[in-house]
């Protein structure tokens, strides 16, 4: 008997198209492949020849869930190439915009897509029958995230107000004051969401990951910081290529990113939290402890708790930014095109997002490279699947399939972004 294959041909509740192939021989998992078959997007080639100022609007189109991340990594990389630093109120407003995206994206994933796994429902609609309050809270939280994007980004999806150097329009104090009232309510809803997810049953599962995230001297990271890992990596974004490389694997249209010297690594909320716990405000740290999260979390199933903690942080940070808002003298810093190479690394909801651009003297883009978080996490996802499936071989194929899908959703993978993903097959032989 000994050989068996379990296949999920289309993984639900993740963004994009992918599948999972699990091979089991003599009671051992011999292969777990995350097959990404979403066609390549070719954005990097599309950017060649375009003006540097177009990069934030073009790359925002890579993802409807995390367009801000693409805009932020793009503007930082361009400013890096042009030798310009955006500081003061404009820098703070970029963090505020990112708060909106984290609130919206994390809430959608944690409550609407991931929570049903833990509570045994097929989807959020079935879950809502018995957990209506939690779902209503999520809808209200998501609305607040959208509101930030609408006000500061110009619209909720694919915002249009971000430019290299700053913004096109900066909202008034009165507009921000109205947003702050909504954010105060959202903060309470976010805390209630943390308490709700903290009570979920979590499988006893830990792995020894190398966590990679940005680290800033005094901020929980959105836009700035050095690339730091739990095993001693500490580099500037400029040195990304010397430490990381992308590899093509036959079963995926997305490149798999590895640390050249060590292999797989993990980016995203859990990595960010572990590397930057000391950068969270004391009340958020206390909330994490109440939610039974240690300062370091190695259980990927608990990433849902980390996401909700980050939503609380994003609400508080947004409120702090609005409270200290001083209108900037200009909506953007003046820029002169020049030939150069620029690197930008920011923290998308799903993890670190790296952009590199080479621009010509006239400001046209000669080369572009974009490394999204899901490409970076692919190998870790496959390793998690191997480990989780090995421990769950006594389950029926259907139960094993569900468990594997849950493992994948721990990562909130964005397959559409990564194809530059899901069906699940288990092969038992």
């Amino acid at each position, binding site marked *: 008997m000994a050989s068996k294959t379990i296949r999920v041909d289309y993984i639900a509740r993740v*963004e994009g198209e992918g599948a999972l192939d699990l091979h089991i021989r003599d009671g051992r998992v011999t292969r777990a492949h995350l097959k990404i078959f979403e066609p390549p997007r070719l954005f990097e080639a599309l950017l060649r020849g375009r003006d540097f100022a177009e990069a934030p609007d073009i790359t925002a189109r890579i993802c*409807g*869930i995390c367009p801000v991340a693409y805009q932020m990594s793009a503007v930082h990389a361009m400013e890096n190439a042009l030798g310009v630093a955006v500081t003061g109120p404009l820098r703070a407003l970029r963090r505020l915009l990112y708060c909106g995206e984290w609130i919206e994206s994390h809430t959608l994933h944690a409550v609407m897509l991931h929570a049903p796994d833990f509570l045994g429902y097929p989807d959020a609609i079935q879950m809502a029958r018995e957990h209506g309050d939690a*779902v209503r809270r999520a809808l209200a939280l998501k609305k607040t995230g959208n509101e930030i994007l609408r006000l500061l980004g110009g619209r909720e999806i694919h915002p249009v107000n971000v430019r290299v150097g700053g913004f096109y329009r900066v909202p008034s104090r009165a507009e921000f004051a109205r947003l702050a009232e909504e954010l105060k309510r959202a903060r309470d809803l976010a805390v209630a969401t943390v308490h709700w997810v903290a009570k979920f049953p979590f499988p006893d599962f830990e792995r020894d990951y190398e966590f990679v995230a940005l680290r800033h001297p005094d901020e929980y990271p959105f836009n700035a910081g050095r690339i730091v890992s739990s095993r001693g990596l500490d580099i500037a974004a400029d040195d990304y290529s010397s430490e990381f490389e992308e590899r093509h694997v036959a079963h995926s249209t997305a490149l798999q990113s590895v640390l050249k010297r060590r292999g797989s690594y993990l980016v995203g909320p859990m990595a960010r939290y572990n590397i930057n716990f000391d950068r969270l405000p004391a009340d958020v740290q206390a909330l994490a402890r109440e939610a039974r999260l240690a300062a370091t979390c190695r259980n990927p199933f608990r990433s849902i708790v980390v996401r909700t903690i980050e939503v609380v942080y994003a609400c508080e940070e947004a409120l702090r930014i609005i409270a200290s808002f001083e209108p900037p003298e200009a909506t953007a810093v003046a820029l002169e095109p020049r030939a150069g190479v620029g690197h930008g690394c920011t923290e998308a909801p799903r993890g670190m997002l790296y952009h590199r651009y080479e621009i010509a003297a006239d400001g046209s883009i000669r080369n572009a490279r974009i490394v999204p978080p899901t490409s970076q996490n692919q190998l870790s996802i496959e390793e998690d699947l191997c480990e989780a499936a090995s421990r769950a071989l006594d389950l029926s194929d259907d139960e094993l399939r569900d468990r594997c899908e849950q493992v994948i959703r721990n990562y909130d993978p964005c397959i*559409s972004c990564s194809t530059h993903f899901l069906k699940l097959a288990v092969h038992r032989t």
Partner: protein
Amino acid sequence: MTRTTKGKRPERNVLVVGIGNPDRGDDGIGPLVVRQLAGRVSPSITLIERTGDALALIEDWAGRDAVVLVDAAAADTTPGRVHRIDLLQEELLTDLSRASTHALGVADTVGLARTLDLLPASVIVYAIEGANFAPGAALSPKVATAAEEVVARIAAELREMEHEHA
């Protein structure tokens, strides 16, 4: 906005949403229908277009008395065929409108709103079977013809709604 005219009851707060991406062939029929309804229906009726996140529909229809959704559907058998679904009486088939694996689709959103008691008193869905959803494609001929039919049917339905209410 609700306007009150002397001697008349307040107008019903009605919303029409055209759902779809105009740059994806027949998926653009929802927005097209809404654009063609402008000027042909009472100015008190709100007309909006939506792409992407269907969950935001719950915010869009909050506080409305009635909502009409116009959306393309994956072709069952007959491109251009129009389905009129009254959600008070029928469920929306998930596979008729599911477009994304990540964001919730229109049917999911309607299901969720129904469970949470967040649906307006009247929800009518016009689903038009599409043939071609390729990026950059124009509406296919049968779907373009169906658009004219849907505009006329919705305009008539909205007039009737007003008439019943007056």
